[in-house]
């Protein structure tokens, strides 16, 4: 598909105005810059012609060069790999993007040679001092525990020899966790993410064993030793939200109370079988629930209490820093998924998917990677080019966009609009939450 690059210096989606009890505010989309503006500015803006709007924006200080240009990144070093160590699973989640763990291909384990080649590639592209990340996914990765251990130890040893720092993570359904895993994960500072889709029956409906039996109680029991041992290790809960598990505030509070280091929600937008995908009313409902969770987060931060709602804490820090990105994630750039037989894919979700295939782990990314980065740039996405949220969102999950389109844009904008408001409130009430504020900025 070829299309003329849109004129991003134009003003469609150049600014987003929003109000709080502290007045009117504006997100200057270029550079994700947040300003306080006098009341009535939004109305004034809409009455201006393009030249006046441009003059106003240029008065805010950014130069003539946009923060993000049309050029895809060149020669990105490879920093993160996810290994599909086991392309099979003991659960039968109704909506699984991997179609029950095997990605629609024969079920199998990753052999040592592939894992070793993955580590070697990461080490080869890393200069001393750089941090590399190795993520174990599946399927259910703990089915192939031996490989995880061997690979982690090998990577640690290679990294130490070269002066490279390592980060390890694993995403697991939790059903196969053993007490000795806690020790190993702690020793290597793993970020452990456990998929939990609610409390008790809500979870069990979505994440049953292959025989149909619920998994919630078993998982919690197995997660306890990990939750108790979080020093170097961090254990998070990841909730996929479907129409079946909408009680987010209760879920969040419950998991926070259990001692999870972070709890995050993401909407179910695309399943190979179409099951449990959220539709527009479902997304509206989820947004309302997310905002309720966000309000609890605001109250906790103002009270000086830790409340690890990861969607919110990530948004707060990204808005504070003015994060602006031309992609939603590092897929195909610094991050790739490795399939069990050593294929290189844009990310863990694209494993065994021709749309995201871009080489092998032994030979490295092939030219399809360049084409991917060029195609997936948010400036090439429609209708992103006129959307004010484009540099905070990055265009949405590639996997979901390619397979279902963009059904959740209103949800994303609604969430970001709320987060911008919350950012204003929190930066007024607790500037310390965002780090020390220079005195001049407070004047």
């Amino acid at each position, binding site marked *: 598909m070829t299309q003329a690059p849109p004129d991003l210096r134009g003003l469609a989606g150049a600014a987003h105005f929003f109000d709080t009890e502290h007045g009117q505010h504006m997100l200057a989309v270029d*550079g994700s*810059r947040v300003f306080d*503006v006098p009341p009535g500015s939004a109305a004034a803006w809409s009455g201006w012609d393009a030249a006046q709007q441009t*003059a106003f924006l240029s008065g*805010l*200080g*950014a130069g003539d060069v946009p923060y993000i240009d049309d050029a895809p990144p060149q020669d990105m070093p490879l920093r993160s790999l996810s290994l599909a160590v086991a392309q099979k699973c003991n659960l039968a989640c109704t909506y699984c993007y991997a179609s029950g763990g095997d990605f629609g291909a024969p079920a199998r384990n990753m052999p040592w040679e592939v894992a070793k080649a993955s580590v070697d590639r990461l080490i080869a592209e890393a200069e001393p001092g750089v941090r590399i990340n190795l993520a174990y996914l599946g399927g259910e990765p703990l089915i192939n525990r031996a490989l995880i251990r061997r690979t982690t130890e090998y990577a640690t040893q290679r990294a130490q020899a070269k002066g490279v720092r390592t980060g390890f993570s694993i995403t697991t359904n939790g059903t196969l966790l053993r007490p000795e895993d806690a020790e190993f994960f702690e020793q290597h500072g793993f970020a452990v993410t456990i998929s939990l889709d609610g409390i008790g029956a809500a979870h069990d409906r979505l994440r049953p064993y292959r025989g149909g039996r619920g998994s919630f109680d078993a998982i919690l029991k197995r997660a306890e030793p990990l939750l108790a041992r979080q020093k170097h290790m961090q254990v998070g809960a990841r909730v996929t939200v479907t129409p079946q598990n909408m009680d987010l505030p209760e879920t969040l509070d419950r998991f926070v109370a259990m001692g999870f280091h972070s709890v995050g929600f993401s909407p179910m937008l695309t399943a190979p079988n179409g099951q449990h995908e959220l539709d527009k009313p479902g997304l509206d409902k989820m947004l309302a629930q997310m905002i309720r969770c966000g309000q609890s987060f605001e109250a906790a931060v103002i009270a000086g209490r830790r409340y690890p709602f990861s969607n919110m804490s990530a948004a707060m820090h990204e808005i*504070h*820093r003015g994060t602006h990105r031309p992609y939603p994630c590092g897929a195909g750039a610094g991050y790739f998924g490795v399939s069990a037989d050593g294929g290189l894919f844009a990310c863990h979700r694209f494993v065994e998917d021709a749309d995201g295939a871009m080489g092998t782990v032994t030979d490295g990314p092939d030219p399809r990677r360049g084409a991917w980065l060029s195609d997936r740039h948010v400036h090439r996405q429609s209708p992103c080019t006129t959307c004010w949220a484009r540099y905070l969102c990055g265009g949405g999950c590639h996997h979901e966009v390619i397979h279902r389109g963009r059904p959740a844009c209103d949800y994303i904008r609604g969430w970001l609009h709320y987060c911008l408001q919350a950012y204003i409130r929190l930066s007024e009430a607790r500037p310390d939450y965002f780090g020390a504020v220079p005195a001049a900025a407070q004047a």
Partner: protein
Amino acid sequence: MPDQPKPIRVKPRNLTARAAYRVPGNPANTRLDGSVGNCFPGLEMDVRDLDRRFFPGLVFNAVRVPLNPVPEAPKNTQGFHLVFVDYMYDPMLPDDSTEDWVQTLLSAYRGDIGTKLGTGRWFLSWVQQGDRRIDMHDEDGTPYDGMMVWRFIRSLEAGSDNPVSLALVRRNHEGVVDTEPVELHGYRRRYRTEAGVFSDTYDPGELTQSLCNPWSHDFRDCGCHYWPSNHPDVVMAETDPEHALPTGQSYNPIKAETYLDWLRSDRSLAGNVAAFNTVEQNRPFQIDHYQVNQMWSDLPIVVEGRETGEVYEADIDLPDVLPYPSTAEMIADLRTRLAPMEMTLSLQYLYAYFTLADPETADTARWPTLKDDLIFARRALIEVAIGEMTHMRCANQLLWELQGKDYHPVLTPAKTLRFGPGPGKVYPRSLRPLTTEAIDDFIEIERPGGYIDRAYARCVATLEQRDLYERHLYTLAVRIDTDGDEHYLRFRQMKEVLAKYNTGEGLPAYLRPVEVGTEDQARHALDIFDNVKEGLHDAYVSEAGKDYPEAQDYLSQVRAEMKILRDEGEKLAADRIGIPFWPDHDP
């Protein structure tokens, strides 16, 4: 150009917004004399604090001889006083060092010597490097002042081939050494690492700990070099917004251009009375020691010599000033009006300068202050004349930047000047002595908001258009535009100082009888003046062509010629002859 939207005051909130937001900072034409302070340089640290850790493991304070010791105070407290022994984290003394001297020092500090140094008051007795030993006391045993010891310590060399030995003595309440001295051997500390960073040995805050703070009592009096930032002595008052012209300047320039004592205790508008000339005279009206503690944060920020209130506006809007319709018209105005005007002004001032009497021959018997006042007036007048010469150069620079290849220097004085309120009155140029009337005219010419800066206001308004002109042209025009303030002040001071010599009978004592001479009488001076003009012409042409070394050569020649012209002008003036800078003068 579309109509600019009305300015909207925004506040950048997150990090990208703050990083990109251009706050009104120092413009490109900022000069040193525009800085906040006008007395002492500010310092970021107290260098004495480096030497308090000159020897590994020991921390000293330099103690001065007390000014008014109470009788019961301990004696001989001055010198390099050992504050404490601090060897645990000293980067020169690592536990696992294989150096003998390190291990020897460490066991001394950990053992009996450390214990001994922990009781009583210990002072540095002597240091030795090579075969030179410096005793830290007089021949009669009186310890040196801490600052003197500090200077000796600064002379010690660092490095592995320069070992240092020292002795510490304990002094009792009577100031008498009461135990065996402690001798230690090591090396002087290097205060900076190879990378130029201060040694880790210093604790956070240690290097600034002796700097004064504005909320401490002596902020009022202290003239030392140890302020974290310098503070101004005299300032101009904030323009009262109620009394401001549309340009932001005060409608009352005399009040606005009066120097006030920055530390005045009456901070109401009524308290804005001119500062006296000396610190002693101002003292009774300044905030007192105890008041500093409460009022230090009321002392206003000073920008460009002026106190500022809530908001500092970097670029004052000139709402009633219209830009030139075209660049060509601005160029024409600069060529025919502004640059020639600057040349006429500089020559008028230079002429007036030569009419001031020679301070060395002043009748000090009759006028005891005349010599000083003449020195002041001559200096002030030559400064203003040089200022106008600088403007002439700036006007030419605007021209060469705007005209490019078509530029040729403008070095012809204007035949008429216009000044006064409103559109102003036209005056023919005139070479005349610095009489009271002349000073009054000069004050009017330079009055802020008067003719001169209104003239450049159109240039400023034109060059302000960022999309049409480069920013440095704008700052150049602003600089000419705002220099008038200083000139205005100088002439007012001259008037004040010289008024008393105007007795109404004959020539005031500060003037000498000088009349415009003929071309023949001033032949030599006019030849030099021609050389000056020629040299300036060549320098401007070279600079316009970006041949800076060549321009520099021409300018050096011009400077030398100007020096000769000044000598020649003095010589002629002594013979009552003024230089006829332009030929058509009616005597």
